[in-house]
């Protein structure tokens, strides 16, 4: 029986949250951090326990019936299978490391208790998201992580720009969530259940492949996934979300939450298989997002924004995999990505703290000697990101994706993936060179304070670095049995060719980057400062101008409407009777002029009118 272990795994972070929230800041920073880290650590242990107990077949644990009205019976119930356990391991495992690192990163900040309360709440919500056996409970987690993301992005609340970023993140993802909610409504209406297992059973029975309903349902669910996973066109929030503390970016905006969309689509694979067009759309959107983000990453100066676009790009890979029906490959990449992107973010965090919150590449540089641990982290993480052949985890997962795309015969997606690999190489090299090599750009980078704490600084980085190598890839058990067979399953023909291609792309990217950034540095800067180059730089820097577009299309009209209606025009119209009464009153009061003679006159007039009316009346026989 693994139920206690599973339940414990998400109750522990919740307990941490409650403890920290109810203590209301009375606990010291150290105690708070200890509670926050320990709860997730214990959760990780619980997860490990659950993994050891896992019988190999999915198991459902129903805690209680949430709502029961007629057929509508969502439960608070957990479905534990390989996928859930995989996700749990990533969430609690990577989560624990990040929590640990955060203890170093957040030292000296105000509101540690608040930080950890929210972080723990995030872990709790994320676990519910992956554990929920029905879509409503999944939605609970789904929204919960959104809220935590909002709170943690806006953690430095004094700066209203952070607040704006948090706000934007929440609203944009919320738009996606509404699509997901609509999908839920549709699914429930058509299938009469929200239980995920049931849905996957009933959908093929009730829906034709490619039927409108199936397509719409899949599209709506996809809408939710796009918002959460920052894919085009709901991606604009992710770069801004970097306003949060770096561990937050690592946990939420790299390792776990943003991959929830991938998880969701993988979870509902049966639904998407009934809507092949939509599934293809998933792949196309993934490819587009991947390329778009990769280009944007080329033109960022903020190291966290580079990583953010890179995250978006890597999730694009996962979507691409989903799009060709390679669900396992997507999850595989999700896991390895969680490792190496967390590593990259934490290393970036180490740099940022060491350099006193300096994160502009132009003002960093030359740090490789002064911050060796962070540099190491960057190197390992970066190589995993560019999928350096054989030694890194990223290589195996990305290779799998490209292979599946090829096996599915979708050459467009394959080409996009290869191009993405080249671009990844370029921006990664640019990032590492810009941060660690060359001249120091400011005093902060000239005299950094390297992290020294063995447990809270070195340990997480080292563990993640190890996981980012081929060891991480080995650890992935493979979830083939859970998913419908992928296109490339059991086929070996052409795999070698693909590997050659992929390695070629990586090498090409790295070489090109090396050539550009080491040999032709001045030329590059000249190109970027005027003419087409500058325009290109600007477009990429602003990530193809989506923000401006949405600003013009949605935000400004909305604000205009709000300002127009601020004074409640409808209500003003309803004041008309009051106005009429006022006018009539003013008129009538004038008749009360106090003069008796005019009173008499009015009386006589009244009588005259009455008589006249009677005289004119048909019955009045005048």
């Amino acid at each position, binding site marked *: 029986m693994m139920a206690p272990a599973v339940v414990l795994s998400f109750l522990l972070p919740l307990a941490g949250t409650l403890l920290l929230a109810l203590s209301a800041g009375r606990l010291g920073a150290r105690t708070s951090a200890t509670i926050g880290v320990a709860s997730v650590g214990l959760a990780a242990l619980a997860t490990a326990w659950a993994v050891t107990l896992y019988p190999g077949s999915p198991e459902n644990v129903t805690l209680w019936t949430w709502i029961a009205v007629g057929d509508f019976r969502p439960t608070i119930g957990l479905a534990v299978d390989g996928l859930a356990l995989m996700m749990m391991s990533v969430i609690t495992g990577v989560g624990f490391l990040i929590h640990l690192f955060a203890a170093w990163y957040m030292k000296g900040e105000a509101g540690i208790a608040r930080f950890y309360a929210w972080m723990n709440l995030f872990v709790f919500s994320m676990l519910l998201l992956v554990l929920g056996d029905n879509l409503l409970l999944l939605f609970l987690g789904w929204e919960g992580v959104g809220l935590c993301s909002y709170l943690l992005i806006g953690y430095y609340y004094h700066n209203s720009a952070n607040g704006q970023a948090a706000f934007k993140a929440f609203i944009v993802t919320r738009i996606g969530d509404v699509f997901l909610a609509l999908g839920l409504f549709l699914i429930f209406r058509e299938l009469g259940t929200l239980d995920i297992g049931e849905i996957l059973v009933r959908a093929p029975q009730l829906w034709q492949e490619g039927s409108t309903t199936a397509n719409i349902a899949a599209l709506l669910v996809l809408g939710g996934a796009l918002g959460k996973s920052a894919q085009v066109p709901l991606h604009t929030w992710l770069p801004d979300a970097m306003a949060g503390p770096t561990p937050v970016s690592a946990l939420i905006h790299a390792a776990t939450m943003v991959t929830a969309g991938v998880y969701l689509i993988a979870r509902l694979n049966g639904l998407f298989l009934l809507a092949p067009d939509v599934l293809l759309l998933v792949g196309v959107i993934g490819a587009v997002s991947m390329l778009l983000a990769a280009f944007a990453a080329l033109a960022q100066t903020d190291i966290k924004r580079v990583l953010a676009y890179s995250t978006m790009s890597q999730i694009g890979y996962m979507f691409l995999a989903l799009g060709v029906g390679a669900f396992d490959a997507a999850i595989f990449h999700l896991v390895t990505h969680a490792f190496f992107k967390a590593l990259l973010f934490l290393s970036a965090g180490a740099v940022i703290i060491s350099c006193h919150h300096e994160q502009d590449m132009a003002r960093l540089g030359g740090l490789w000697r002064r911050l060796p641990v962070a540099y190491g982290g960057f190197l390992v993480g970066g190589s995993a990101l560019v999928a350096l052949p054989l030694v890194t985890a990223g290589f195996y997962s990305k290779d799998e994706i490209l292979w599946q795309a090829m096996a599915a015969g979708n050459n467009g997606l394959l080409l996009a993936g290869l191009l993405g690999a080249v671009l990844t190489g370029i921006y990664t090299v640019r990032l590492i060179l810009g941060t660690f090599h060359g001249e120091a750009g400011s005093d902060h980078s000239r005299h950094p304070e390297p992290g020294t704490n063995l447990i809270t600084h070195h340990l997480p980085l080292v563990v993640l670095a190890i996981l980012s190598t081929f060891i991480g890839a080995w650890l992935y058990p493979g979830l083939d049995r859970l998913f419908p067979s992928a296109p490339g399953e059991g086929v070996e023909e052409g795999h070698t060719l693909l590997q050659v291609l992929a390695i070629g792309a990586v090498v090409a990217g790295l070489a090109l980057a090396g050539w550009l950034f080491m040999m032709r540095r001045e030329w590059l800067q000249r190109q970027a400062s005027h003419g087409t180059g500058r325009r290109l730089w600007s477009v990429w820097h602003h990530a193809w101008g989506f923000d401006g577009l949405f600003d013009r299309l949605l935000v400004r009209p909305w604000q205009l409407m709000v300002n127009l209606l601020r004074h409640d025009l409808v209500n003003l119209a309803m004041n008309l009777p009051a106005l009429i*009464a006022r006018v009539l*009153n003013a008129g009538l009061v004038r008749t009360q002029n106090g003069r008796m003679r005019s009173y008499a006159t009015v*009386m006589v007039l*009244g009588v005259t009118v009455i008589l006249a009316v*009677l005289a004119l009346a*048909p019955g009045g026989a005048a």
Partner: protein
Amino acid sequence: MLTLNSLLAVLPLIIVATTAVVVMLGIAWQRHHGVTALVSAAGLVLALLALPMAYGAPESPPLMQVDGLAIMASTLVLLSALVTVALSHHYLTGYLGPREEFYLLLLCAVTGALGLVASDHLATLFISLELLSMPLYGMLAYSFRAERSLEAGIKYLILSAAATAFLLFGMALIYARTGRLDLAGLAAGLAASPDSWTLAGAALMLAGLGFKLSVIPFHLWTPDVYQGGPAPATIFLATVSKLAVFAVLIRLVLTAPIFESEWLLTLISLLALITMLGGNLLALFQSNLKRLLGYSSIAHFGYLLVAVVAGGSLAVETTGVYLVTYLATTLAAFGVVTQVSSPFSGEDAAGLHHYRGLFWRRPWLAAVMTVSFLSLAGIPLTAGFIGKFYVIALGVADSRWWLVGGIVAGSAIGIFYYLRVMVTLYMPEPGMRRRDATNDWGNRVGGLTLLATAVVILLLGIYPAPMIDWVVGLSAVP
């Protein structure tokens, strides 16, 4: 012919008239305010006690009809008069001139009112109406040294005389066409031939009576007279005079089929509509309480005109119930004004600023006022709501949707100023000079009566069944 039995039917009237004579003689012999008031009150109480006897009388005297409607109206007249006497006593205590004549005038007017409600003949109608009105001139101008009282008296005198002339002329026209003066005969004569002369006559009579009820466009005197007259006189005008006139109007309408002519009914509906809306609109921003109550009474009689339009037994019942509630409410509202203005010294304290923060000085008095204003606004649990309920029910039962709409709109407008007054009572007290009730107001007869009135308003609102039964019992249409 006059028999002893038929005299029994007018026993209350006789008692009141006798009291008036006694009071007059008493004044001639020796003036004594307290005794005069006591004697007047005693006479009124006796008359009240004689009412059941009158109802039981086997026959009515000629020219009169002592039926349920008359008894009902008489009861209300006597009760209102009694309350007026009680309130007057305290009020007049401070009056420097002769005080006793006020009661004399009042008793004469009550006699007129008693006659009016029972009149079955245009002659009695006319004489009683004048007997009611004539003393009122005196009462309104009673404190004639105060400019406004005099002005009120003169205005009311002249306009009322003009209205009487209308009434008379209308009667004359109808008489000329039908040759009958008794209502039943009138009815029979009119049924045959409604020509333009009779219609004009009916319209003129309506105008004459409408004046007393301050139906728009014959309402202009109301606020001025309400404001200028001494508070007890205004009370009397607002209650006894109006209710007696309305009683006779409803009798007229019920008996004479000419008033069932669709055009006349449409006309009355229109007047009712204008009256209920106009009265409320006029009051909106009024800051003199007595004027405000004047406007409010205009509106209330606008509502009540629905009964005239609708006709039928439910109309009489509605009239009865509405009048009961209206009386209780008006007495209470004016009663508070009287208390704040007592003992008499110059003009009445009718400006709203005198009442600001009354609740924090005189909580019970303010409570009485609140109750009465809630009742005026027709808020549930007060008598006024029952009245409004009846009127709306009547309008609905008769499918007079325009009138119902008018009532709803009128009430909505009305609430604005009723609330304005009510909330003033609870506002922080202003620093400015103001008048106030005496400290012992609650222990005096007037104060106790006032409290009793407020209790009656609440009782009627909470448990109106007995009152309704009483009215139903008396309002079987002849």
